[in-house]
C-alpha cells in the first residue's frame, strides 16, 4: 500500500512541485516587493517579541543574565510552534479547500498533504535561515548542536503530518473538527513552554506538561538555539511514538474514507 502511494506520488511529482511553486508565486504575485515579504514577516515578528518581552517587560531567563537570551528562547519556541500550527491548520482544510479539484479531476489524493508538508517546510526553512542569520549577527551561534535541527524537524513533520491527516479527513465528515481544533490550539499553545520557561512552574505542573508531546520537542529547540545543547533523545520518545501512531491512524482513515470523501464535499 505504501509502495503504491509512493509510486503515485512519483508520477505526479510534476504536479506536486508545480503546486508548491505556484503557491509561493500566488502569494506574492500582485505585490510590488514580491520576494521581500516572506523575509519581512518573520523579521517583524522577531523584532516585536524582542522589544515587548525582552525590553519592556524586562523578562529574563532564570540563570542567564542577558537581555537577548529571552528573545532567542522565545523565537526558537515560536518558530517551531509556527511550523506545527501551519501544517495542522492547513491540513485540516486541505480537502475542503480543494473540493472543486477533487470532485472534477482524478489525481492521487495523497498529493495534497504532501504539498502542504513541502510548503510548510520551505516556509520554515526561510524563517530558520533568517533566525540563524540573526544569531550569527548577535554572536550567539549555537555551533555543532545545530545539526540536531534536521532530526528535530523531521520528527516534528512526521507528528504534524499524522495529526494533520487525521484532522483533514475527519473535517470533511464533521466540520466541527476544524472549529474544535482551532480552540484546542489556543490551549495547546499556553500548555507548551514557549512564552514562559518550564522552570518557573511548580513541580506538579511541570510533570503535567510532560504529557504534552510537544513540550520536550520545543524544549529541545530552545536548548539548541539558546545554549547550543544537543537534545536529550530519550525525552523525544513520547512524540516519536505518538507521531507514528497518528500517522498509522491517519493513513488508515485516509485509505478507508478517501472514496466516500468526494461524496461529502
Amino acid at each position, binding site marked *: 500500500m505504501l509502495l503504491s502511494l509512493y509510486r503515485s506520488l512519483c*508520477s505526479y511529482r*510534476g504536479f506536486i512541485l*508545480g503546486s508548491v511553486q505556484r503557491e509561493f508565486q500566488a502569494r506574492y*504575485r500582485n505585490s510590488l516587493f514580491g520576494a521581500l515579504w516572506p523575509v519581512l514577516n518573520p523579521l517583524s515578528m522577531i523584532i516585536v517579541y524582542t522589544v515587548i518581552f525582552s525590553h519592556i517587560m524586562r523578562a529574563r531567563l532564570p540563570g542567564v543574565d542577558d537581555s537577548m537570551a529571552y528573545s532567542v528562547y522565545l523565537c526558537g519556541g515560536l518558530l517551531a510552534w509556527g511550523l506545527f500550527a501551519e501544517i495542522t491548520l492547513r491540513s485540516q482544510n486541505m480537502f475542503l479547500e480543494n473540493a472543486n479539484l*477533487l*470532485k*472534477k*479531476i*482524478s489525481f492521487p489524493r495523497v498529493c495534497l498533504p504532501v504539498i502542504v508538508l513541502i510548503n510548510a517546510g520551505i516556509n520554515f526553512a526561510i524563517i530558520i535561515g533568517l533566525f540563524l542569520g540573526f544569531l550569527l549577527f548577535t554572536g550567539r551561534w549555537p555551533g555543532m548542536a545545530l545539526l540536531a535541527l534536521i532530526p528535530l524537524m523531521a520528527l516534528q513533520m512526521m507528528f504534524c503530518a499524522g495529526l494533520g491527516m487525521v484532522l483533514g479527513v475527519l473535517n470533511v465528515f464533521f466540520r466541527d473538527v476544524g472549529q474544535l481544533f482551532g480552540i484546542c490550539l489556543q490551549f495547546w499553545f499556553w500548555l507548551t513552554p514557549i512564552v514562559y520557561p518550564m522552570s518557573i512552574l511548580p513541580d506538579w505542573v511541570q510533570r503535567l506538561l510532560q504529557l504534552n508531546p510537544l513540550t520536550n520537542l520545543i524544549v529541545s529547540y530552545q536548548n539548541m538555539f539558546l545554549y547550543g545543547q544537543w537534545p536529550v533523545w530519550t525525552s523525544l520518545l513520547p512524540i516519536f511514538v505518538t507521531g507514528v501512531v497518528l500517522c498509522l491512524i491517519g493513513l488508515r482513515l485516509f485509505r478507508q474514507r478517501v472514496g466516500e470523501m468526494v*461524496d461529502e464535499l
Partner: protein
Amino acid sequence: MGHIRVTGLGKAYKQYPTRWSRLAEWLIPFSPLRHHQHWVLQNVEFEIAPGEAVGIVGANGAGKSTLLKMITGTTQPTCGKIELEGRVAALLELGMGFHPDFTGRQNAIMAGQLLGMQVDDIEALMPQIESFAEIGEAIDHPVRTYSSGMQMRLAFSVATARRPDILIVDEALSVGDAYFQHKSFERIRSFRKAGTTLLIVSHDRSAIQSICDSAILLKDGCMAMYGKPEAVLDYYNALMAEREGQVVRQEMLAGGEVQTVSGTGEAAILSVRLLDENDRSIDAAEVGQSVVLEVQVEVRQDIERLVLGFILKDRLGQMMYGINTHRQDKALTDLHTGERYTYRFSFVMGLGKGNYSVSLSLSRLDSHLDRNYEWRDYGLVFHVINNRHEDFVGCSWLAAKTTITRSEAIVSEHTP
C-alpha cells in the same frame, strides 16, 4: 488499448437520519449501519470495444454525469467494477483548476501536471496547444483577463494535446463560438479515426448521431436501452413526451430501422405515402421532382385541436426540413370520434441523393411535449435519386444557375 468494461456498476450516496448517526456508526464498534443508501445508479453494464464511440443520453438527474465521474475515477462506485485499458482524458468542466492570476501558459502547464504530465512533456506540446487554442498573445496574459470562451479554448487544447486511448466528453462541445465548436469537434473526429474510444454525454441529437456507433439511454439511474443511436434517441424522444396512459413501442422495420411509436392515442396515423405528379405512390423521388406527402389520420376520441407535423431526416437522423400545421395556421379544431382526415403536403424535392425518413407527430399545440397523441419515427422511408440533373454534393438542391463573364486583363503601363 481503449477498452472499457463496466459490470454491475452502482452508486449510492449515504444518507444519515441525523448528524450524530454518522459519528455513532464510526465510533461504536459492531453497531448496526445507521444510514440508508440513496441509489442514483444501478446495474449498469456495458462493454465498449477499442475505437468505438458511444453516446449517453438521458434526462437531467438520470445519472449520466455520475457514470462519467466513476469512469474517470473522481467518484468511487458503491458496487460493481470498471475496467479501463489505456490513457483516459476527460473533458468534464473544462477550465477547472485554472488560477486567475497566472498566465494562460502557466495554467496550461498546471493543467498538464494535473493530468500527470511532466513539465518537459508539456513544454514540448506547448506550440501545438498555442496554435490550436488560437488565442494569440493572450497566452501570456493572466487568465482573469480571458473571456469564458478563451478559457474554454485553452482548456480544450490542453486536455486534447495528446491523443488519449479513451476520451470522455461531457457537454463540452456546446461551449465556445461556432468556429471553435467545429474545430474541436473535428479534433474529436480525428481522434476517433486514429482509434480513440469515445464516450459522450450530450443533449445534442445531431452530435451523437453523427459521431456515435451506439448509444446508452439512462433513465432514473438504470440503463433503459443500449443500441443504435437513432433507435435510442427516438425512444428517448418518445419517453420525454411520456404522460399518463401513453404507450411507447418499437418495431424493427424491413430495412433494419427501428420504428418508435408513442402517444396517448386520441388520434392515430393510418398511412403515410409519397406520391408523384400523377398521385402514384413512389419510394424513390427525383431531385427537383414535384411530390406530395400524403398522411391519413383517424380521430379516435373527441379532441379540441389537432396539429400534424412532419420532419424529413437523413440517414444519420439529421433534420432536413420540418413543419407542422400549427405554424401553417391550418390546425383543426373540434374533432369528433371516427372522423378521418387526409393531409397533402406538396413540395418540390429539394434534397440531395440519399435515404431519408419521415417522422410524424399528432399533437394539440406546436410541440409534441404538450399533448402527444401520436409520435411516429420512420413513418416512411424514401430515396432521392438524381438522374435529371448534373451530379452535385450535399443534402440540398439549390439549382444554382451559372453565368461567367470575361473581363479585360489589367495591363500595367510599365510592363516592358
